[in-house]
């Protein structure tokens, strides 16, 4: 004969198991229904530090397909390389804002700018930058001309710019603009003239 205490214990344990199963099932359903954050969208770059300066950046406008010079005030470090990074990160804040005239993906960022030799700058962007880029000759040119001309205006002595994605060379920005070559600053200046608002 089975002892009474043993029967009571087994029954309680069985009831507890059922209750736990129902609870876990409910938790799983709630997790499936909740919106999932698939990617980190906020910037991971360190905050800019240094004295606030007024600089000219070149901002792309998709709708008329133009590039316009614009003055902004941003903190810039004294070092040449940090200054270049600060300039382009200031530009990124304009493009990732809600009412951007040339929207890029929220996670788009400048990973770094390297001044390899006196005339060459290498801009390293992340993969979110490329994934959020609108495909087309003109939209891609606007992005590149905006980055390169902003650097050229504020960093005297540069002659060429190379663009990498996640530290590696990529064929095109989004299917059109060639990223295998170096961008000559004189050629970009000519392009910027053609992209400027017509008087």
């Amino acid at each position, binding site marked *: 004969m089975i002892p009474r205490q043993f029967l009571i214990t087994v029954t309680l344990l069985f009831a507890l198991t059922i209750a736990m199963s129902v609870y876990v099932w409910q938790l799983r359903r709630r997790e499936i229904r909740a919106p999932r954050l698939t990617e980190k969208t906020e910037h991971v770059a360190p905050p800019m530090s240094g004295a606030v300066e007024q600089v000219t950046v070149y901002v792309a406008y*998709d*709708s*008329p*397909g*133009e590039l316009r010079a614009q003055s902004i005030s941003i903190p810039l470090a004294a070092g040449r390389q940090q200054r270049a990074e600060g300039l382009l990160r200031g530009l990124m804040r304009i493009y990732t804002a809600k009412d951007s005239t040339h929207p890029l993906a929220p996670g788009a960022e400048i990973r770094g700018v390297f001044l390899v030799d006196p005339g060459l700058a290498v801009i390293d962007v992340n993969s979110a930058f490329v994934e959020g880029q*609108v*495909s*087309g*000759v*003109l*939209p891609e*040119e606007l992005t*590149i001309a905006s980055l390169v001309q902003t650097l050229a205006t504020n960093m005297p002595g540069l002659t060429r710019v190379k663009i990498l994605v996640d530290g590696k060379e990529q064929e*095109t920005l*989004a*299917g*059109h*603009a*060639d990223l295998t*070559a170096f*961008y*000559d600053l*004189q*050629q970009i200046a*000519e*392009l910027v003239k*053609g*992209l400027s608002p017509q008087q």
Partner: protein
Amino acid sequence: MLWNSASRRVKVSLYQGAASAGALLFALAVIAAQGVPLSGAPQGQAQSATPTLQSSQPSPNQAVPDQTLPPVQPVPAPPKPLVMIDPAHGGSESGAVLNPTILEKDVTLALARRLRIDLGARGFVAELVRDSDVNLSTDDRAAKTNAAHPALYVCLHATSESGGIGIYTPMLAESGETSGPFVDWNTAQFSFLPASRAAQQEIAGAMQKSGMLARSLTAALRPLGNVTNAAVAVELAPTKADVSQLSAADFQQNISAALANGIAQFLSTSRALR
């Protein structure tokens, strides 16, 4: 007496016969020396002995070339200029997704086919770099174009951003290293830039004449820099936010007609300058 007269007659006859035979032989010798063909002689011997006579008086039945006049060569018609049309992207590489149902590779192919017809109607020969939905690398496109030696290469693109129609020439700062007939692949276009810019101007002018917003710009866009002929890229853009316009037949027809006018103007001008 009788015998004497008879023998004299015989002698006279013999002399006369000998004289006649001599005269005949002399005549034959003269005739042979002048080369008149004898009816019984083999024809080959007579022809070989008298080439000048034969050539000056040809028999109507003989197909002998007339050596007195220079041969008349038929003047070949000038070759029609070839235009190479390259619908960008294709196959698994769809280009820009203009909207969920319209892909750039389809828009460019449809426009390229229209342009081929429009150029044909204007008397030019046009070929497509791709005439189906296939993958082609930019190097393959340039190699195919360079092998065909066209008068003009036109690469077609499309975008969803409404910034007007862009007419692009390659963005090349300087020529690469050249060694004899070998040129740097990445800057092979460099010496053809003046011709490319002339084509760009004519096309942009024709677009503006048709009431379209067209801009002349430069672009770092493959394979423009690898083409060894006049080369331009044309990017379609909707006139307003409605991207479906890009695949509409009437919109494409207007663009194609304006493009064909500009190309025809460029080819006529460049032919006149040659």
